């Protein structure tokens, strides 16, 4: 099927990053004495990279379930803003939308943002397959990492940079395709200012909130003046 081929090609930039980050997670989790099914369950149901890595620290300290809930909320609150982009788009997808919402990670979000489906393909299906393929890469990584049981046969440190590289390319494509550069500039300013004020561990959510507020204010101003 053409949709499968096209969707697979779109997810290639994410594949390596997800599989090897999943492996790293599986190795760390089994290193704490947990099993393959725990790693599989995390990848399948939690499916959130940065949270799963933070969870390793919490499990190590034998943190409480309540602490895990707060950690999840703090780390994943950013996802609220990803959803805002796709509210109307996902509505058109019928039952598929429930899976799309569940699986909207940073990486899947970035692929969907930069998606240009050829008109002869079914875009709903393409979007669904992209989300599914990324999820599968992550699960494969989590399982393989847990099976390896602490021994990585080859050193692939740094492969996670491929996700960063992909994000940069999405930014460049958006800059080229959009006439209105204001959102990108506001995003840059909010990101840098919040990074300086709130430091690396906490800046993300403040950057997103300030960015949404600033964009809304500027938009309202523009309408009043024009």
């Amino acid at each position, binding site marked *: 099927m053409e949709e499968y081929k096209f969707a697979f090609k779109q997810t290639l930039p994410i594949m390596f990053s997800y599989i090897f980050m999943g492996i790293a997670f599986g190795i760390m989790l089994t290193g704490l004495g947990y099993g393959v099914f725990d790693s599989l369950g995390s990848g399948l149901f939690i499916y959130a990279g940065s949270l799963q890595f933070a969870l390793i620290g919490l499990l190590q300290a034998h943190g409480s379930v309540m602490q895990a809930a707060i950690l999840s909320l703090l780390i994943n609150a950013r996802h609220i803003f990803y959803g805002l982009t796709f*509210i109307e788009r996902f509505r058109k997808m019928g039952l598929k939308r429930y899976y799309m919402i569940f699986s909207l990670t940073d990486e899947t979000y970035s692929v969907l943002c930069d998606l240009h489906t050829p008109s002869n393909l079914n875009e709903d299906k393409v979007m669904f397959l992209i989300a599914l393929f990324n999820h599968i890469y992550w699960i494969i990584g989590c399982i393989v990492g847990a099976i390896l049981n602490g021994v990585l046969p080859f050193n692939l440190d740094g492969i996670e940079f491929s996700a*960063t590289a992909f994000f*940069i390319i999405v930014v460049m494509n958006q800059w080229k395709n959009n006439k209105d550069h204001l959102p990108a500039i506001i995003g840059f300013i909010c990101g840098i200012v919040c990074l300086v004020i709130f430091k690396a561990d906490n800046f993300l959510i403040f950057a997103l909130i300030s960015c949404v507020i600033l964009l809304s204010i500027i938009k309202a101003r523009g309408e009043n003046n024009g």
Partner: protein
Amino acid sequence: MDSLYIVGIIVVCSLVTLFVRYLPFVYFGNRELPKSMIYLQNALPSAIMVILVIYCLKDVKLGFNLYDLKEIIACLVVIILQLYKRNMYISIVGGTLCYMIILRMI
């Protein structure tokens, strides 16, 4: 006992993550979006992607030696390759290889 503990943690983390991902969709339901939201819907991706790039680079230390500059150099490689070759795969592989090589040079 321990296996119950990890299952509990996984369930809670899954539910909270599901909650934040569903929140905007549940909040707006099937209502028509307000005008301001329609603007945000189109404007946010560019802003969020820039912030995500900053997020990926948040732990970069500013120093003038090759090791501290590895992320910056790799990013420049990605940007230059993308500008001149216009092939996403070449840009990603080139930038990532560059990053992995510098990482191993110390």
